[in-house]
């Protein structure tokens, strides 16, 4: 039987406010355990929450970016359950009246484009962390994260492949980082995904029973987790079994999902409106003032990259997805005055080095002005593309401008025709057998054979000879020998 996969995502995005959603404690990552938890975060008796308006502003920014209705009157509710890293015994969240209503994002994969509807996005507080190692059989509780503002973005079950799911997550990541409301650092948990996955026979209207894969923190794992889970569900059903509605955990090391808890174990969260917080009422003026501050969003920027820089859809999509990268790219364009060359380098040599060194583009040792300067030297034929890679490597490890490095290393390209001709003559003189083969070859095969002479000339000039000039001259001189 042919199966169709149905996927919906719940994405938790940590908002980059300075302080927590209901207290004045700092939200900075990585501090000593429990040093960023104040009386409110510890849920000391008598403490009360005070809503951080910045979180509201950021959530509305997201709502506007996904073309959503903004809730005019958002209500915080308490989700009650016991857990040691949940100090109050309830999580303050939104249920019936979220800050962001229905919206959508558009995604493109090899299968084409798709609109993913977003059911709503709501504000809530993060829990602390339970640490189960290093405590001799006991658990440690770190409440630094408790109270960090989150928006939970709940999609409709609109995705049909794992690739679409990861692409949707990438798009959300692009939006929140472009808006500057999230640092986008998935390794630190700034964005976490729960994937709801079910399968159904192709053509069937009704959804199958879904499982929820919890807390996936990379795009790659989203795809792998879904693929693994879909394979499990298909095997299960085809072997005559049924899928049980449950929460499952994806183990990336073993590439398998396993059951965490079944629906029967699910808590009754006993939601009710939080009496300590007033409904958050916003008017049109407030929303419009926020709209006026929105930066250019990834979709708009991608379109502009295509029209303004004549980039391919693919290149424009990659370069616009992450705001620091898009900003970097545009700075390189400004410095180099060559959009295509800039795209090739930012997505090629730079990306390769950033990946290899696990470095964010914001911390790139080569800045956009340096790279732009280097590209200029390619454009004006001071150096070849291959030499430029050497200059770049030097730039990456030692710093310096392209001109400084070219000067210091004597890498300036030889464009002087006389000098190049001299080297070509030497190469031809020292390669008699290759010249004979060249002459004996059919004229239409000769083009391929020119590579050998080219390599010899480059070797002799230390790669500095202008490749275009060398090719032209070589061809002319060799062909003259054949006449």
């Amino acid at each position, binding site marked *: 039987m042919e199966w169709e996969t149905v996927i919906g995502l719940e994405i938790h995005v940590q908002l980059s406010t300075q302080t927590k959603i209901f207290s004045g404690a700092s939200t900075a990552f990585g501090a000593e355990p429990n040093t960023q938890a104040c009386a409110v975060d510890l849920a000391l*008796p008598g403490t*009360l929450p005070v809503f951080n308006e910045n979180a509201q502003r950021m959530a509305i920014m997201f709502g506007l970016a996904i073309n959503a209705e903004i809730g005019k009157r958002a209500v915080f509710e308490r989700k*009650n359950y016991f857990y040691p890293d949940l100090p109050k*015994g309830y999580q303050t969240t939104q249920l019936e009246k979220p800050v962001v209503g229905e919206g959508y994002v558009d995604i493109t994969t090899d299968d084409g484009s798709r609109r993913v509807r977003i059911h709503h996005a709501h504000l809530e507080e993060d829990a602390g962390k339970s640490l189960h190692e290093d405590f001799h059989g006991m658990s440690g509780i770190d409440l630094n994260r408790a109270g960090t503002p989150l928006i939970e973005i709940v999609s409709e079950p609109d995705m049909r492949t794992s690739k679409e799911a990861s692409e949707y997550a990438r798009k959300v990541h692009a939006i929140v980082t472009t808006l500057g409301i999230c640092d986008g650092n998935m390794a630190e948990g700034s964005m976490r995904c729960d994937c709801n996955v079910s399968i159904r026979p192709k053509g069937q209207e009704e959804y199958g029973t879904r499982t929820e894969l919890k807390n996936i923190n990379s795009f790659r794992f989203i795809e792998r987790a879904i693929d693994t889970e879909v394979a499990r569900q298909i095997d299960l059903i085809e072997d005559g079994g049924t899928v049980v509605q449950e929460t499952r955990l994806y183990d990336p090391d073993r590439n398998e999902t396993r059951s965490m808890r079944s629906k029967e174990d699910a808590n009754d969260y006993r939601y009710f409106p939080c009496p300590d*917080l007033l409904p958050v009422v916003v008017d049109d003026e407030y929303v419009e003032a926020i709209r006026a501050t929105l930066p250019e969003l990834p979709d708009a920027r991608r379109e502009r990259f295509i029209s303004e820089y004549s980039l391919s859809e693919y290149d424009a999509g990659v370069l616009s997805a992450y705001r620091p990268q898009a900003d970097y790219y545009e700075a390189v364009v400004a410095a180099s005055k060559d959009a295509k060359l800039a795209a090739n380098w930012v997505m090629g040599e730079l990306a390769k080095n950033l990946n290899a060194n696990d470095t964010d583009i914001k911390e790139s040792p080569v800045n956009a002005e340096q790279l732009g300067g280097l590209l200029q030297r390619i454009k004006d034929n001071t150096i070849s593309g291959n030499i430029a890679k050497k200059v770049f490597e030097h730039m990456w490890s030692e710093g310096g401008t392209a001109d400084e490095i070219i000067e210091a290393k004597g890498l300036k390209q030889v464009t002087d025709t006389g000098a190049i001709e001299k080297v070509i003559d030497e190469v031809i003189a020292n390669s008699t057998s290759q010249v004979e083969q060249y002459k004996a070859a059919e004229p239409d095969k000769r083009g391929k054979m020119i590579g050998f002479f080219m390599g010899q000339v480059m070797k002799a000039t230390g790669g500095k000879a202008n490749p275009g000039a060398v090719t032209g001259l070589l061809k002319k001189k060799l062909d003259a020998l054949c006449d």
Partner: protein
Amino acid sequence: MHTKSLTELAADLASGAVSSTELTQAYLDRIAALDSQYNSFITTTPEIALAQAKAADEARAAGQAGTYTGLPIAHKDLFCTEGVRTSCGSKMLDNFESPYDATVVAKFKAAGAVMLGKTNMDEFAMGSSNESSFYGASRNPWDTNRVPGGSSGGSAAAVAARLTPAATGSDTGGSIRQPAALCGITGIKPTYGRVSRYGMVAYASSLDQGGPMAQSAEDCALMLNVMAGFDKMDSTSSQRDVEDYSAKLNDSISGLRIGVPKEYMSDDLDPLIAERVQAGIKELEKLGATVKEISLPRTRMSIPAYYIIAPAEASSNLSRFDGVRYGHRCENPKDLMDLYTRTRKEGFGAEVKRRIMVGTYALCAGYYDAYYNKAQQIRRLIQQDFLAAFNEVDLILGPTTPHPAFKIGEKNNDPVSMYMEDIFTLSLNLAGLPGMSVPCGTVEGLPVGMQLIGNYFDEARLLNVAHQFQQVTDWHKQTPAGI
């Protein structure tokens, strides 16, 4: 000296007739000598009191004294006090020393008040008799075999026995007014939001309100001037400007329109209390007030509505007492569930458990609409009853309680009969309205109270009417035998 009112003592301090240190020592001596009879204090703080008294005397010598400088106060033991046990009358918090001051406590400190100690109360403010206190019931100074009322019973008993000239209380369903009535003192529950709840351990957040308890309306005004006001730490506190509650005390009440709800003067009411209230009404008529009968038809519905909403909120508010971060923790828990269940089984008393169970049940998914939502609807109807009444009258008047103080143990096996004692007070909390209890006579040697109910933020009028009443009566000056 101990029989003097707060206002008289303020005058004596101002004139230099007595120093704060002398005054404080006199009250500390009385507490040490007499409180074993009343059990009205859970904790006394003589060292803090004498240090604050000394500082107050120095401030006065330096010409920096305010109205409240050097005046003693006792705080109900649910107001957090830095460095001093804040038990809430519970084993759960028997070992809890708050690291911070409640806003109310901080305001009294800033005004130069002297803290004598922390008063006894029903556990987590749940009760109408003080019998649910982990520290044993406080006793009514008028008859120590009887309850002082609750939950602010310790505060009421301490003021009635003249162990302190003033005490703070809190009122969720009558917890200031009912004990004030049963102990022959004056107490006011302000409009919800008038006094900050920050640092006041929550019972039912949408109903809780702190307020003054003292000998007279004039004294309550003095206290409310210190307590009232917006607090940015409490999102539900009102930003409305605070009046000088002492300023209008002597205004004439001629022309005041008083409404007496027929539902209050009903079969539920002890006929002897009805007589005393009628006599009180006569006094106000003599002062120029006009009186008419009104109707608050949903009065009886306030009991079921309250006993859904308050336990529902309490079940969530008390989740934080889990043995993880502070307070009682069971010995050698074998796992997490054991830690939770045993800690809470050992730490909470029967009435608290009863309300947590009722509230948890009411919020469960299948029952939420039938109970919690229905109760909220009733709550709005009750509010509408009051608002309709305030179109016709300036003030509503009736009894505070249906009966005088009952015997300790009398209602222990009948919680519903205990709940019925709150029939006249609960509806104000549901509506958020201000109300006060003023002594209006005795029934068989036991004091009874007359309840004045005002429109929102009409505390100044309530205090004015009560003060005028107390100018022509002396019930508030009467004390138990031997005081």
